[in-house]
């Protein structure tokens, strides 16, 4: 706005020089009106005065600009200094050489300065027009935004700063989030970065962080953001949802891991505590049974031995059941690795299980190995219960991002042969760990279950991001 005003005034003043000298008829007219010669001369001087005023105002405006925009300070002061020096020098020369022509020289210099101002103002208007043209391009771009980071790139293009970051305020999480769901703290100041805050409906909406060195004017950032506001609001909601989803996924994974650890604890307590104790009791009972049997033919002794023996038998059965429960909670073979645990499953299976596991199985977290183990166990259970199959083929292999376990039987296939809640639970567990479970069950072609898991669980991938 300011530039436009300066340009207009300067142009008028310069043009005015050619418009006045007053046309031939005016001077006599003025005389007739009683306007004195001196007053006429003053009019000419008024033009000069007007030009001078414009120059002063322009100078003041430029001064204010340089104060606000320190990086331009040096350039403007240098230019201004040159002009002033030039003016003073020529006035001095004129005074020394042609004292009477001083007035003319000053006038000429004023005109020159105004001309420069006019050109500068015009150029600045042109550049602003280009910049605003960039905003117009942004508006068109925004119509095409569908990928999350596209909005950030569009704004970066419009501002001519590829390092632009967009952060949205998420009231739900109480933090700023980026377009791909990472949380962070953009308000922490970093050198060379400038923060522009945007709000909507009196609530914080987003912040735009851009490069300080590029010296982007505030009005340009504001123009860009105004154009992008609706898209920004939309993206804000998307960013919030993505961050919440990432949180929820991480917490699901944590729940699975916690569950596995809790079961392992129970199995260990059963083994180290209860089972040992019961075995010790069983041992004492057997010893007592032996003693009474060896104590000779006395009727009472034999009967007692029988009683003790019966008690010991019952206890032995209880111990066996307890061991089965403990193994169901957490198979001890898992401590020796996934391949060992699957071997153990195959050994006791009521139908032939063919295992194909590579020698170089990638190391995976305990929750991943447990998930594969329970997957195979569940597949085996379903095959045995429903499928009428002759065997189950189990394959574990690496994939680009983790592990794939396949369990294929040659049973009857079809929906009637699919397991119920067990598979649903497995599917949940797989999803919580960032993987997936697929069921392919065609009638007369058997059932194939496929479990894919990443070896880096999702909870570790999205840590809090601090820019």
């Amino acid at each position, binding site marked *: 706005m300011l530039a436009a005003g300066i340009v207009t005034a300067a142009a008028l003043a310069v043009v005015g020089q050619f418009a006045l000298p007053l046309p031939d008829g005016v001077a006599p007219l003025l005389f007739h009106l009683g306007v004195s010669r001196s007053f006429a001369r003053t009019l000419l001087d008024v033009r000069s005065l007007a030009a001078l005023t414009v120059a002063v105002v322009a100078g003041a405006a430029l001064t204010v600009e340089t104060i606000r925009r320190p990086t331009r300070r040096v350039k403007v002061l240098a230019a201004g200094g040159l002009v002033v020096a030039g003016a003073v020098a020529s006035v001095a020369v004129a005074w020394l050489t042609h004292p009477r022509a001083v007035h003319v020289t000053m006038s000429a210099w004023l005109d020159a300065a105004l001309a420069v101002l006019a050109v500068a103002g015009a150029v600045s208007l042109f550049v602003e027009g280009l910049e605003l043209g960039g905003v117009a391009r942004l508006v068109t771009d925004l119509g095409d935004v569908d990928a999350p980071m596209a909005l950030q790139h569009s704004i970066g293009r419009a501002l001519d700063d590829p390092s632009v970051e967009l952060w949205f305020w998420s009231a739900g999480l109480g933090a700023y989030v980026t377009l791909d769901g990472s949380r962070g703290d953009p308000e922490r100041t970093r050198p060379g970065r400038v923060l522009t805050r945007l709000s909507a409906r009196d609530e914080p909406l987003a912040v735009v962080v851009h490069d300080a060195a590029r010296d982007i004017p505030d009005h340009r950032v504001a123009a860009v953001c105004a154009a992008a506001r609706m898209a920004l609001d939309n993206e804000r909601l998307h960013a919030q949802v993505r961050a919440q989803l990432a949180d929820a996924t991480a917490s699901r994974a944590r729940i699975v891991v916690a569950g596995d650890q809790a079961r392992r604890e129970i199995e*260990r307590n059963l*083994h*180290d505590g209860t*089972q*040992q*104790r019961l*075995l*010790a009791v*069983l*041992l*004492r009972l*057997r*010893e007592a049974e*032996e003693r009474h049997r060896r104590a000779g033919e006395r009727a009472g002794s034999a009967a007692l031995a029988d009683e003790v023996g019966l008690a*010991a038998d019952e206890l*032995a059965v209880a*111990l*066996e059941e307890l*061991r089965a429960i403990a*193994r169901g909670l957490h198979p*001890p*073979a898992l*401590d*020796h690795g996934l391949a*060992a645990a699957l*071997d*153990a499953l*195959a*050994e*006791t*299976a*009521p*139908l*032939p*299980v*063919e*295992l*194909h596991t590579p020698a170089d199985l990638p190391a995976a977290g305990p929750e991943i190995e447990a998930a594969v183990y329970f997957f195979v166990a569940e597949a085996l259970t379903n095959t045995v219960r429903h499928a009428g199959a*002759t*065997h189950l083929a189990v394959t574990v292999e690496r994939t680009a991002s983790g592990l794939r376990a396949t369990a294929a039987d040659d049973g009857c296939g079809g929906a009637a042969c699919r397991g119920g809640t067990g598979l649903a639970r497995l599917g949940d567990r797989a999803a919580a760990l960032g993987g997936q479970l697929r069921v392919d069950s065609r009638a007369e072609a058997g059932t194939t279950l496929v479990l894919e898991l990443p070896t880096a669980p999702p909870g570790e991938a999205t840590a809090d991001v601090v820019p």
Partner: protein
Amino acid sequence: MNTIVVDDSVLLREGIARVLDDAGFAVVAKRGDADGLVELVDTTGAGLVVLDIRMPPTHTTEGLEAAIALRATRPGVAVVVLSQYIETRYALELLADGSPGVGYLLKDRVAAIGEFVDAVRRVTAGGTVIDPQVVARIVARERRHNPLDALSEREREVLGLMAEGRSNQAIADRLVVNLRTVETHVSSLLTKLGIPVAPDDHRRVRAVLLHLSHTDRPA
């Protein structure tokens, strides 16, 4: 014979020591973990060590590792390893180094006092003992193309007893047949399964177990 008992449960440690003492083994040391086992064997002059697989600190396989280390450095010492769970891999690892005088028993076997003592005696006599339940599981495993189908009922019985570590004479006594019959069955089933004749009982056990546990696992 001087004996060391290692088990992280006090109750069981005492119980096992009692049973062994009654059977004529002199229990000279009882421990709750396998640290410094080799030194302890040296200082006590023990000829037999009975230990549990699960031990502190991680309670996974410390006992197994200690047993293997002990057999490597003191091959003359008889070692009986007790395990709460059947794990074929553990048995194979114990047998891997090829020297006799080793046993792998289910811990519950301890309560079957007669069988436990018998197994310990066989190990101290230089035999190799694998718990019958471990063998049963390996032999009974369902396979698509089961090589054991080629064996007769009797041959399968003999196979199981061989895998438990029994000598031909012991098998003959058990099945109440004469030695020559057993020898015939043995060479017949070894041929049918493609297992080479082993120079001694210990290597025989190892060969049989290895063969049986590798079926159904393509290379």
